[in-house]
């Protein structure tokens, strides 16, 4: 196994890929969004419970779906991280995560904000897998924009 593979398939990822956390439908949810990657057929449904109010906080997050280890682990880790975050914080998290994977220089990297999500940094060496790692994240953005403009039936990373 070469270094890139070792970086990609870390213990945590294999574990979350195999036993994703929060893998269920929330009993009560306010937002839901399907995410789909037509390239490989990965698909998932993200569920969020956001209490209305001035400070919109994500109280619970879960998902269901099927796909590769990267997309499942990324979704699993995402749902773990989201709990307790405000919408603004979630959006910052998206940007940071995207920066981590693509090295986008428009966004200043603040890796400490990502916490455990940093285990996905190895994806950066595998450009074709970035879509897998960001699938749940695109679903997150879709869910948060649901109220605003026309809600898409599903979002894709294509």
């Amino acid at each position, binding site marked *: 196994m*070469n270094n890139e593979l070792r970086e990609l*398939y870390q213990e945590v990822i*294999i574990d979350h890929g*195999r036993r994703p956390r929060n893998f269920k439908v929330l009993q009560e949810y306010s937002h839901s969004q399907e995410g789909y990657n037509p390239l*490989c057929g*990965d698909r998932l449904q993200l569920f969020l419970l956001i209490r209305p109010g001035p400070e919109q906080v994500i109280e619970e997050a879960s998902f269901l779906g099927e796909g590769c280890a990267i997309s499942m682990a990324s979704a699993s880790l995402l749902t773990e991280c989201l709990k307790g975050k405000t919408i603004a914080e979630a959006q910052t998290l998206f940007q940071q995560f995207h920066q981590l994977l693509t090295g986008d220089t428009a966004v200043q990297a603040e890796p400490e904000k990502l916490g455990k999500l940093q285990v996905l940094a190895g994806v950066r060496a595998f450009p074709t*897998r970035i879509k*897998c790692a960001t699938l749940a994240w695109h679903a997150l953005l879709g869910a948060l924009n649901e109220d605003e403009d026309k809600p898409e039936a599903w979002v894709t990373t294509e």
Partner: protein
Amino acid sequence: MNMRDRIPGKETQGLVDNSLTFDIDAVRENFPILGRRVYDQPLVYLDNAATSQKPREVVDCIQTYYLQTNANVHRGVYHLSEEATSAYEASRDKVQRFLNAKSRKEIIFVRGTTEAINLVAHCYAKPLLSPGDEILISTMEHHSNIVPWQIICNQTGATLKVIPINDAGEIEQDAFTTMLNPRCRLLAITQVSNALGTINPVRQMIKQAHQQSIPVLIDGAQAVPHLQVDLQALDADFYAFSGHKVYGPTGIGILYGKQELLEKMKPYQGGGDMISRVTFAHTDYNELPYRFEAGTPNIAGSIGLGSALDYINAIGLDQIARHEQALLVYATEQLSSIDGLRLIGTAKHKAGILSFVMAEAHAHDVSTILDQSGIAIRAGHHCTMPLMAHLGIAATARASLALYNNRADIDALLAGLHEVKRIFK
């Protein structure tokens, strides 16, 4: 370009690599890309169902065309244009002979299988369809043999009917027989499944369809590289394939159509070459096959395709089929030895396509790990999403064989799959 000097022909009986009757090492020399290294590993190319590699002969032929002959075809009175036109039309003759079509007028150059099927959907089927009519396809079709029919069914009110398959990935022949009926306007099926490897009994199916006067389109994209196709024996009404999957260039493919059907069809695209007389009030269309070839064609592509067919002929499709079958048997054995690996597509008659899923790892992860060892396979739905839905899986990993693959390629694949198991232990 005398290929017989460079390619071991049928006379070479050196039994390299066991049951083979051509010299696989010599053949591999014809494909320079096989010498490439990927991540510092030798390339093991097992994605031939997506596209095949090109022998040097084909690439040289394209190069020579551009550097020595290039001119537009059909309309020039000067020498280069004559040469280009002759080469272009000679390629059509090669395709005719290769498929044993009755007439060169039945051979239409298109971009590929997808365009060929769209042409038939648009120019042949659509004008025939009324609400209640049916188009018959099978569960294992490629999107290219689904979506064009969906589009015209939507436009005309006709219905798309789907022949079921069994667990091995074979068409249910009894169901097929009962689905043939007078409202059926066309049967469109693949000869070889790109996702399962299944070789369908198209000759028998065409016969049955014809008994009820139902014309048949055969998607030959995965058949032409691997099986001898005799269009007159097959009696297909339309037949489609892609150059890039038969060791030829991208951007070129063939639609065959029986002359009496093509004669009745309106043209597909309008433009130069497909007309014989134009006024602002009226246009007379040109004769076959030109009526369906509007605009400047892919001249270099057509000539390159002819050269690819020459290459195949020099080795012999029977030899290629024997080689690939032997390798398929070996690969099937080897893959079956892997714990938790399940082959998808276990038809009795199969071409060299091995689709599989692994208990531990998703196809996408399998492909990424193999790639790091230089092994190119495909992971995904293989443009057969409805088939995947039927099978209840989102994706398979797929290794697909060509004439230049050898046991070492399969052994590398095996080693790679063991690595997958180590990572996902």
